[in-house]
């Protein structure tokens, strides 16, 4: 397969003693505050004494002035927030109270509170008007951390819109849901919450946690009532592919503030790899259910989008629901795709797919 479209990991000796978030600059810039230490890449002029300044063609090519990188202290730097990325996401914790069979970021029980601090600093320094994603683990696992996080952002009057991935269980406590909404009155926040079934039997099995479904349901009710915008996420698997439309009907009838619904094709990363044969179901097997689900969009007046479904694997009548969405650092296409007229509209395949499971169909020429 061809390589992914954007590179984000680099090495340079000059970074050997730098640790944590830094702001990448190409020139001196007095407009940027002093939230984060700065490194100067490929600057024409001398940026001062005692500053970290060096030339590096790779880093220069793939970054923009103002981007944020996390340095590991050993010379490596990963670009965490970039203006040239089509999606920016920050990891705020690796801890989680679910253990989803297809978890793409398997949890680790570590004390990583520092990640929240890094995230807050990075967002403030980056100061973007474009959405930044917040993910984990479970970002809302410890209510105090997230409340603190928002409080700091508010102190610096940062208004960057945020999209937070969460299992929603924290919202089962009404007070937390209300506090969450209060803290974000000046900021656009959407929370992406997965719901995998209309009963605990299916959902709890998939997230491998007893009681998860009930808490998520209570959470979705409270969050919606508090006024929090919700993106409902559904991942079809062998266990739940026949009830996707039922989940949508339930959500649309019972929850408030469902801003959109995302049906997401399983990605072969993390734990999904080892559970693949138990979980994965080909879109062709449930295409009627997919069509039925997409039709609910007009009925309930809610956007319904299909993610990670190459166009050649879903019926033509729902192509307009498919979003070209995969973060550009994961996009790849096969050689067969080159002859497909729909290629520019299609999200392609995941780089993680590694030549298995693609079966691209011959498209209309």
């Amino acid at each position, binding site marked *: 397969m061809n390589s992914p479209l954007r590179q984000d990991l680099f090495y340079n000796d000059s970074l050997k003693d730098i640790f944590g978030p830094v702001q990448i600059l190409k020139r001196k810039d007095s407009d940027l505050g002093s939230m984060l230490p700065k490194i100067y890449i490929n600057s024409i002029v001398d940026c001062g004494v005692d500053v970290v300044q060096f030339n590096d063609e790779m880093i220069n090519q793939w970054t923009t002035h103002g981007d944020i990188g996390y340095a590991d202290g050993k010379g490596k730097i990963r670009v965490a927030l970039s203006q040239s990325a089509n999606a920016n996401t920050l990891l705020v914790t690796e801890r989680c109270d679910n253990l989803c069979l297809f978890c793409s970021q398997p949890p680790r029980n570590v004390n990583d509170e520092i990640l929240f601090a890094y995230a807050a600093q990075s967002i403030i320094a980056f100061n973007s008007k474009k959405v930044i994603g917040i993910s984990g683990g479970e970002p809302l696992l410890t209510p105090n951390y997230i409340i603190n996080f928002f409080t700091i952002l508010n102190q610096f009057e940062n208004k960057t819109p945020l999209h937070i991935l969460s299992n929603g269980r924290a919202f089962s406590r009404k007070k937390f849901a209300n506090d969450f909404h209060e803290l974000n009155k000046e900021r656009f926040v959407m929370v992406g919450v997965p719901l995998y079934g209309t*009963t605990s039997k299916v959902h709890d099995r998939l997230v491998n946690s007893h009681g998860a479904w009930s808490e998520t349901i209570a959470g979705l009710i409270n969050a919606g009532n508090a006024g929090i915008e919700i993106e409902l996420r559904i991942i079809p698997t062998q266990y739940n592919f026949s009830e996707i439309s039922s989940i949508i009907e*339930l959500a649309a009838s*019972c929850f408030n503030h469902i801003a959109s619904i995302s049906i997401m094709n399983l990605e072969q990363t993390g734990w999904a790899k080892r559970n693949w044969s138990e979980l994965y179901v080909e879109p062709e097997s449930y295409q009627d259910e997919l069509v039925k689900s997409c039709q609910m969009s007009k009925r*309930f*007046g809610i956007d319904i989008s299909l993610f990670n479904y190459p166009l050649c694997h879903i019926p033509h009548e729902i192509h307009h629901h498919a979003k070209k969405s995969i973060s550009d650092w994961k996009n790849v296409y096969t050689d067969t795709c080159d002859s497909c007229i729909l290629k520019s509209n299609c999200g392609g395949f995941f780089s993680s797919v590694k030549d298995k499971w693609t079966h691209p169909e011959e498209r209309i020429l």
Partner: protein
Amino acid sequence: MASYSLLPFNFRQLKDDSVLISNLSNIYHILPNQNDLKKLINNISDLDPESIKILERKLFISTTDDFEAKVQLTTSSFTKNIHKDLSSPRLIMIVPTLRCDHHCTYCQVSRVNQDVDGFDLPLSSIPSLIDFIRKIESPPYKIEFQGGEPLLAFEFIKEFYKQMQEAVFVDEFSFVIATSLSLINEDILMWCVGKNINFSTSIDAGKKAHNRHRKLITKDSFERTQKNIQRVDNKLGKGKIGTVTTVTHDGLSGFDELVDTHLALGLSEMFVRPVSSYGFAIPKQAKDITIDEFMAFYKKLIYRIMEENKKGIHIIEHFLFIHFKRLINAKDGMYVDLMAPAGYAKNSMLIDYTGNVFGSDEARMVYRKHGFEDLIIGNINEKNQVLDTTFSENMLVNSFNFDVPGCADCVYQGSCGSDPIYHLQEFGEPIGNKSNSRFCQLHKSVFDFVFELLKDDSNKSVMEGWL
């Protein structure tokens, strides 16, 4: 072996022995027969596994583990449904004049002749009118001009638009003008170009019915309406005219012609209802057709419309459509006649030619005939207007239909309305005796008919295509 509990539901036996059930989330399901109903009530585990799965998904039954969450889900959806009707933005109706150039035998507004004085809203009242509207409602403002014949007060409408545009953004309000179109002329059409203005006109079943009922001086009302519709289409484009058809005894055989007329005129939005008992229509015509007679006509009409749609011709009948939308909790399921709770002045507001404010179109008709002062909730000409809402609150309290005899056990409770004003007029109190309420019989019949249609997938596709 899992043990299941029941969540509250209502049921109704349909004509073909299947049983329709609905719950407090207003989700519907059809059981194949009475036996399944008995199993559901007496011992859920006796049902087949596939039925159990579906009933779980649709919130009719629950395992012990899921029970608390499912009760929360039911409560949440029940609240959501009531809130939908409770908080929907009002339709604002304005009657700029009671004068009219027609003499319809079943006029519901007790119109007056065009040359009479003293039945118009003065232009000077427009600023108070706009202030009033902005005080009681938030954008988008849905404004409908009724009459009489609103086009006789075209100067008023023009001035109102002008001042409205100065007060709010132009995309924050829309007009509908209810008119016979007989007075449409170049000036009016020119003025409408590019503005968010639609027309609503009546086309009755059959030319003779149309002419007989709407006695215009020149006796050729139907032909003139046809011509004027074409003029509007040519000048303003298609889709600007919605029609309303009121069915009386004379029109009962005219269902095919009604559809043909709409198709020939390029009209795609129909709304068909039986004659009702307000204004001039009683005592003769209201009892003039029974609901059974109307339904016989209506079903044939709808089957014809389904046929046309299946041939690829897009034509919607909105009375059926709104019943369908309410049964599926669709987004645009708001219909002034089918609201519960239905507070007076909660869903619509009407300002008539005297400046008096009423809570509904029917109320001003009832007032003109019977003079109930309670129906007036204010007057726009009075400064520092405080709306008298006591009548409205009384009505509201009596208009929840889940606790009311006749409605409490009804399978359509979550989709239907209570129409307290209708029952007030018929029975002297807002609840009425549903066993001989035309309102009840009509809507139940139409809801039943929707399910009858849905048995056929091709009809289902047509109705879903209308969404």
